[in-house]
C-alpha cells in the first residue's frame, strides 16, 4: 500500500513534463483516494496522464470523475477502458469526457430502472455493466427499461445475460417479438444459463442457412422450457456437435452391428 502510494505521489509530481504537479491535482488525488478510489486505479490514470501529456485541468477533471463514480458505487473499469481507448486513438479530452458523461448517465439510468424493479436487491458491478453494455449494443433506454420491467427478475445475473442477448439478437436482425419470447421463457424457467451467452452467434449462422426466425425461436423455447443444455438447442437446428474432451473418435474400424 505504501509502495503504491509512493508511485502515485511520484507520478503526480512528474506526469507533466517533469514539472511538479499542480496543487489542484494533488488535492484531487487525495479526494479521490478518500472517496475510495484504489491506488491501482490512480496509478493507471497518472501513468496515462504522463504518457499522453495531459494538462492539469484535464487530469483533475478525470480524477473528479472517478471520485463521482466511486461515490456512486459504480464500476471504474469500464470508464477507465473508455479513457484508455480514447487517449490511444488521440481523441480530444472534451470528447472523451462527453462519452464518459453519457456512460455515467447510462449507469444511473439502469440502476434507477433496477431499483424500481427489484427495490433492495443488490446487483454486482459485472451484471450492471452487462446491462449498460446492451445500450452500447444497439437497444434504446426505453427498450431496455420496458424489457426489465416485463421480465422476471429472480436472478439478476440471468436478467443481465438476457439484456445482453436482447441487444445481440437485435444486431443480427432477429425478430424482436420472438427474441422477447425466448428470453422471457428462459428467465421464467430459470434456464437461461451461461451456456446461452453465445445464442446470437448461433442464430446468425442459422439464419445464414435460411432457417426461419420462427423455427429458431421454437427450438430455443423448447430447450429453455425443458431446461435442456444449449447443445440440444443447437442439435435441434441441425448443428453438429464437437467432443471437447477427446475430440472425434477416429481410427476405428467398422464393426457390423449384428
Amino acid at each position, binding site marked *: 500500500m505504501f509502495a503504491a502510494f509512493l508511485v502515485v505521489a511520484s507520478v503526480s509530481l512528474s506526469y507533466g513534463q517533469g514539472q511538479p504537479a499542480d496543487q489542484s491535482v494533488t488535492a484531487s488525488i487525495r479526494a479521490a483516494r478518500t472517496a475510495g478510489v484504489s491506488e491501482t486505479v490512480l496509478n493507471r490514470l497518472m501513468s496515462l496522464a504522463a504518457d499522453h501529456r495531459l494538462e492539469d485541468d484535464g487530469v483533475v477533471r478525470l480524477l473528479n470523475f472517478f471520485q463521482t463514480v466511486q461515490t456512486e458505487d459504480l464500476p471504474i473499469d469500464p470508464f477507465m477502458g473508455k479513457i484508455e481507448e480514447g487517449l490511444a486513438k488521440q481523441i480530444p479530452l472534451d470528447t472523451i469526457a462527453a462519452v464518459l458523461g453519457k456512460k455515467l448517465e447510462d449507469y444511473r439510468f439502469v440502476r434507477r430502472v433496477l431499483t424500481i424493479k427489484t427495490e433492495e436487491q443488490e446487483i454486482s458491478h459485472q451484471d450492471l455493466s452487462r446491462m449498460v453494455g446492451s445500450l452500447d449494443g444497439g437497444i434504446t433506454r426505453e427498450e431496455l427499461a420496458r424489457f426489465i420491467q416485463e421480465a422476471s427478475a429472480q436472478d439478476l445475473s440471468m436478467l443481465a445475460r438476457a439484456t445482453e442477448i436482447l441487444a445481440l439478437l437485435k444486431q443480427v436482425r432477429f425478430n424482436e417479438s420472438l427474441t422477447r419470447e425466448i428470453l422471457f421463457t428462459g428467465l421464467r424457467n430459470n434456464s437461461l444459463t451461461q451456456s446461452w451467452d453465445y445464442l446470437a452467434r448461433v442464430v446468425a449462422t442459422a439464419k445464414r442457412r*435460411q432457417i426461419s426466425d420462427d423455427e429458431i425461436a421454437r427450438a430455443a423455447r423448447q430447450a429453455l422450457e425443458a431446461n435442456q443444455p444449449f447443445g440440444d438447442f443447437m442439435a435441434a437446428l441441425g448443428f453438429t456437435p*464437437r467432443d471437447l474432451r477427446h*475430440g472425434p473418435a477416429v481410427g476405428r474400424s467398422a464393426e457390423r*452391428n449384428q
Partner: protein
Amino acid sequence: MDIKRWLLLLSLMLWIPGCMSLKGDRLLKNEQYQDGLATFTGIVHEEPQNPEAQYYLGRFYLALERPEEALPHLKQAVKGDPAKADYHFWLGVAYWAIRDFDLERKSYLQALAKDPKHVPARLYLAHNFLDSGEWQEALDNYDLLLRREPYNPEALYNRALALKELHRPKEEARAFKRYLQYYQEGKWALRAVDHLNRLGKFSYRNFTIGYRRVTLEHIPFPPGSAKLLSQGKPSLQVLGTILSINDKIWLEVVCYKNGDPSLATARAKAVRDYLLQEYPRLKPSRIGVRGIGRTERIKTGSKVYLLDDSTTFITTRK
C-alpha cells in the same frame, strides 16, 4: 521441501522430452481433468513460455467446459509452437465452444496446412462447413476424410445430410445405406432410416420393440418361397436378443405378400421358427404370426408408399 520447490522439480521432470505429453495424455485419457488442471496450472506458472504446458492446460479447461479460460492457453501454445497441427486443431475446438465459427474454421485450416492428413481437423472442418450451410464444401471434406477413414461414422452420416441439402436424393439414399451398412444402432441409425424411408427406400425400417425403437434390415425371401435368406438373420438376432433379455415383451410377426396370403403366413411362421430355434428359451406363445395377402401401406410425411412384400413386427405386450 516447500510446494514451490516441488512444483519446480515437477516442471523440470516434465521437461524431459515426452514426459509432459505422457502425463498430460494419461490424465486426459483417464478423465482426471481437475488433477490435470491443478498440475498444469503449476507448470504453466513456472514455465509460461512452454507451449506444451500451455496446450495441456488449455485442454483441461476445455474438458471442464470452460472454453473462455482454455482459449488464452491454446493461443499461447499455437504461438509458441505454430508447427503443431494438434494445437491449431484444439484451438479450433475451443473457438467452436464459444460459437465463433469463423475462427474455428481458420484454426482447422491452419491445422491442415501443417498436416494435411490430420483426420480430426478434416472432420471438424467438414462439420463447420455443414453447420454454415456450405454443403458442397462439407461434402468434399467428408469425402477427403473417408478416403483415409472409410468407416468414420460422423463422416458417413453427415455426408448423406450434405447430399440431402444438395438435392441429390439417389446419392443421399446410397450414403445413408452405406452408413447403415456399418452402424445400425443408436439415434443416428434411427435418423438415417427415417431419411431413407422419407425417400421411399425401405431396406431398413425402425420398429418399436417393447419400449425401444430399433433399426432392422429388411427380411428378404426368395421369390415365391418362405425360406429365410441369411441377409435377414442379423436383424432377427437383434430381435431375439431383445426378447431374451426382456421376457415381458410379446411380439407379432406380420408378413405382407400382395395376392398370396398363404405365402405371407408361411413367411411369418418361418421368422418365428427361426427365432425359436436360435433362442430356445423363448416361449412360443410370446411370438404370434399373421400373414396378409395385400400390400403394406406406409405413410411417411405427406407421401404414402405401398410395399408388395414386407415383414413387420408389432409389440403386443410389454
